[in-house]
């Protein structure tokens, strides 16, 4: 094994940068990036991507929200390229394993390249069976975190840390857990925005969201007839009214009993939204992804109805990111805690106070509904949230979309992307995807860290 390459200092370019075309130059800079950030954010981006030698499609799409992008990018840079307990090639390999769980060929391909670039052993890429035992041991946790994070227990952690030849150190494991959750949720984002692999010849259609007319709304396209458009207009109006009502009249719901609140949560949690499930064992599934998969049938499963044995609900207040998660991660892998915290905050508070064609709207209720709904489908309950709001604010199509992207992103289709919020801008749909990404990551991370905490005490 060769020693891994160090990150190049800003100003230097990695070897392959010459071959890749810089999408910024080709497309012009003003389109992809909204003007809020102005010039400084552009510089920030440039600075960020010079070392990598290219701007990948993920960054391009996230570029619609530059404030978030810089936070996201810093975290990813730290995870992959800065000092940390794991060697560089293993980090990329873990990324591959994580992305393969969701059959995300885009991320798998990307990191296969990176893996080789930092001096990874090409033999490992033949499949999981060729990787060292230590990495293979991680597969169980990878599988759980990807699909049913609530099943992860301290025994899993214990098994990995048990002294022995292929044991993990706690610091390594925490980095691996962060990497896994990061790439699971990034896979959600990739599918949610329909980001396609980067091929030299076809960059133009990198994704279905921010087409060159990135600020136009899809409804203005030819997908809808006149009546459909007015329907969509009404949807927006209704949504706005409901938000307003909820914000003003929250106190009037006093009559709701605790039992009912609990029932509402259970309802949301167990509701199975039927998604046109493509065959999971799609024969077209590329073999280069399948080889990183063990137990490919394992996937998200709807919570069983009450009465059957369901895992106990995760009470958000008993293990919060701000208090417990951060404190733990800050001890075991210090730099990343700060950055993750920043990232969660940025995304949770990100708003332009606009909604579709309306300006000056307080969207906090809506954002909280989306965030909590994602946590809800992973079984995390907030005592202080009325899950009735989710039903009020999120239309069925949106819920289908959110649940699909969060739980089985590989089934996302352009159709369900187009079906919800037909009058909204693409950038707003990307915004939802960002919320989704982070909420999902936090949910899985909370489960993982709680298991680590239990192991430690």
């Amino acid at each position: 094994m060769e020693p891994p390459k160090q990150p190049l200092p800003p100003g230097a370019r990695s070897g392959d940068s010459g071959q890749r075309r810089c999408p910024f130059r080709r497309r012009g800079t003003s389109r992809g990036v909204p003007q809020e950030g102005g010039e400084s954010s552009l510089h920030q981006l440039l600075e960020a991507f010079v070392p990598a030698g290219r701007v990948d499609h993920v960054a391009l799409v996230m570029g619609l929200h530059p404030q978030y992008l810089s936070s996201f990018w810093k975290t990813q840079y730290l995870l992959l390229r800065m000092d940390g307990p794991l060697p560089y090639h293993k980090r990329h390999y873990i990324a591959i394993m994580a992305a393969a769980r969701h059959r995300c060929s885009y991320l798998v391909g990307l990191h296969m390249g990176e893996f080789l670039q930092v001096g990874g052993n090409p033999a490992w890429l033949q499949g999981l069976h060729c990787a060292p035992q230590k990495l293979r041991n991680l597969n169980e946790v990878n599988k759980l975190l990807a699909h049913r994070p609530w099943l992860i227990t301290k025994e899993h952690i214990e098994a990995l840390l048990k002294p022995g030849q292929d044991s993990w150190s706690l610091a390594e494991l925490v980095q691996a857990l962060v990497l896994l959750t990061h790439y699971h949720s990034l896979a959600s984002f990739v599918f949610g925005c329909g980001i396609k692999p980067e091929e030299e010849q076809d960059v133009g259609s990198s994704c279905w969201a921010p087409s060159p007319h990135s600020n136009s709304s899809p409804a203005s396209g030819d997908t809808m007839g006149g009546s459909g458009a007015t329907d969509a207009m009404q949807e927006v109006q209704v949504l706005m009214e409901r938000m307003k009502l909820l914000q003003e009249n929250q106190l009037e719901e006093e009559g709701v009993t605790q039992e009912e609140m609990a029932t509402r949560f259970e309802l949301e949690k167990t509701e199975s939204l039927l998604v046109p499930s493509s065959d999971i064992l799609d024969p077209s599934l590329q073999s280069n992804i399948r080889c990183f998969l063990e137990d490919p049938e394992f996937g998200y499963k709807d919570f069983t109805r009450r009465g059957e044995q369901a895992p106990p609900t995760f009470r958000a207040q008993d293990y919060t990111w701000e208090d417990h998660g951060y404190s733990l991660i800050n001890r075991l892998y210090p730099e990343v805690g700060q950055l993750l915290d920043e990232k969660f905050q940025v995304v949770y508070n990100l708003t332009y106070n606009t909604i579709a064609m309306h300006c000056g709207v307080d969207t906090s209720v809506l954002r909280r509904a989306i965030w909590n709904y994602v946590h809800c489908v992973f079984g995390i309950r907030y005592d202080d949230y009325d899950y009735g709001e989710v039903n009020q604010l999120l239309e069925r199509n949106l819920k289908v979309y959110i649940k699909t992207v969060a739980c089985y992103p590989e089934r996302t289709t352009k159709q369900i992307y187009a079906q919800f919020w037909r009058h909204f801008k693409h950038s707003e749909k990307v915004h939802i995807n960002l919320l989704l990404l982070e909420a999902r990551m936090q949910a899985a991370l909370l489960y993982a860290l709680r298991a680590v905490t239990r192991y430690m005490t």
Partner: protein
Amino acid sequence: MEKMARVTTALGGNALTGRTMFCHLDAPANAISVCRDAAQVVVAGRNIFKIYSIEEEQFVEKLNLRVGRKPSLNFSCADVVWHQMDENLLATAATNGVVVTWNLGKPSRNKQDQLFTEHKRTVNKVCFHPTEVYMLLSGSQDGYMKCFDLRKKDSVSTFSGQSESVRDVQFSIRDYFTFAATFENGNVQLWDIRRPDRYERMFTAHNGPVFCCDWHPEDRGWLATGGRDKMVKVWDMNTTRAKEIYCVQTIASVARVKWRPECKHHIATCSMMVDHNIYVWDVRRPFIPSAMFEEHKDVTTGIVWRHLHDPYFLLSGSKDSTLYQHIFKDASQPIDRANPEGLCYSLYGDLAFAAKESLISSDSNRKPYIGDRRHPIFFKRKLDPTEQFEYISSSSALSVFETDVESGSMDWFVHTAKQYALAGRPLAELCDHNAKVAKGLDRNQVAQTWTMLRIIYSSLGTVSSTNLNHSMGKGSAALPLMNSFNLKDIPAGLGSESRLDRSKGESRTENILMDSSSTLINNEDNEETEGSDVPADYLLGDVEADEDDLYMMDHENPHAEEQEYSLPQEAFPLRHEIVDNPSALDHLQDKADSPHVSGNEAETVSLTPVESFSLISISHSLYENRLPSDFFNPIVRDTLLFYAEQGDVQTAVSVLIVLGERIRKEIDEQTQEHWYTSYIDLLQRFQLWNISNEVIKLSTCRAINCLNQASTTLHVNCSNCKRPMSNRGWICDRCRQCASMCAVCHHVVKGLFVWCQGCSHGGHLQHIMKWLETSSHCPAGCGHLCEYT
């Protein structure tokens, strides 16, 4: 400590009594609070809400407030507080945002009194006014604080923090109208209860959430805060700007802080995660807790002093479902376990030693420190004002032991470092060169090692294996030295410590330092020579001087003649020190020798057994049988280990680099890394930056290699607008000007830029150099007389 056992009766007649005790709760606790008379405690959590009475020997469950078949979320408590005026009144904060008051005087089983459902999010904290019976304050995740009058159904006023969630609210104990609130974004706000429109003042106390705060019970201006950034800070609020007066750094996020009653400077803390202990700090001594309670097995979630005026009883609740009463005299005192001595070795062989004064001042013939011949050295005595609750006086004394100038000289090290060739030439040449260097510095043993390496690895032909007379076994040079390591013989002990220490560099080898300091301390204790600086240092010097000579001296006789014909063999007798696995080499060994070897082994308990015999016989057979050079790898490895052990990492690292692949696999990565870091540290302390960088570059350890790849960025500011230039180093994005123009050629400098620190003009390195050869004025024409050195 005996002082500690003293129990004062601050309570007047009815002093509290009790012992350290605990009881199991049915569920994890989130918060606890005591009744004013210190006889009862309430425990609240998600699934528990009970009152226990504190008896002499045990906790007794008095009341379960969690009633009803299917307890609602209103019982899921994040915080609980017992009114300090009315012993029937309690308030809880529920995770679903409800504030509940409880009246124990109610006749029914359900003691729930009032329900305030005004907060939209989880309520993190409730707090009663210290003197007003009906005033209750709450702080919630939704960013609002609400003040309730318990006689009314709704809140009387709402305070908006205008920021993220409120983590703690506390009424000031002395100022009737004031309360403090802490926020998730790191701010602390002070409010006047009469003015809900705007806070009185606000300051940023921590980086990240401030989880808790506590007003000092006596000093009205002091507020302690604890945050996720692992700090406890004490603020003086009397001045117009809140001033941080004390800061304690803990090891985990601080979940609760509570001032200790009757002790002005003591504060108890517990942490949010990871660390389960409760600490009591003296804020003036922030580095070590003055007391520690280690009973809990999961994080402590609530701490409270049992009585307002008793500093010896602390109650705590924890996630591990236990409730504890801690008694101060059972606390563990980390200070007892701390090592109060410090030891540090200087580059030039001086040794500084700091210890508690009581240990040192007993020595009557101690002379005051006069001063160093070369450098000023501090000699400080510090006496802390001893206070009532000070258990350990913290005065200490520092002794400095000097080496005498010649023997302490490290010139050889510097010269060797500068002259060694480590790469770029064939192995044989490198070895020869280095051997010559070593020889030039009178380091014959090292010189011979190099020569030997050349012979082993580059198999230069004819080496006549002459008769080797190996009578040197008993006189193994290092032996006396090593034994002295174990003996309670101070000067020698110091000597060997120092060698060790110097070679490794203090920072890297804590454990070794520990050992050495403890040996030292023993010595000090027993023989009390520590104070006398002068004798100690000449002795030290003595040993130092020996060290190199020793080898030569002791072995002069056996080898004097050999020196002529063959260097390599001569080297062998000196290498008594090598550890080896005798079993593997047994067949080569002289039978007569083996017992002797074991004898030696027994003598040198602590260090490497002596094996020179086997070595020699090997070398003997080597040249007849033409063994592959791999065969010698274990021996070479042991040589290196020996050198490193002796404190000469320089030789070890140099050989390692020169031999490269040939030997690398033999030595485990960690040891190599250790050597490298020690050597690099030494080089840097001698300011041999170039050489240290070369070593870093040549090293094959990954950890070392990346040393000079970290922080390679150089940040520059634009010379016009003084802002940082983010993009490129030579053109400013803001003022669109090229920042660094060469004063000579008037082009932009993109590479090395040299500038005069007097007039700040400069340019291409080459241009400036050239210019200043002929002129002494600045090329820019500013008239400054620039200097280039």
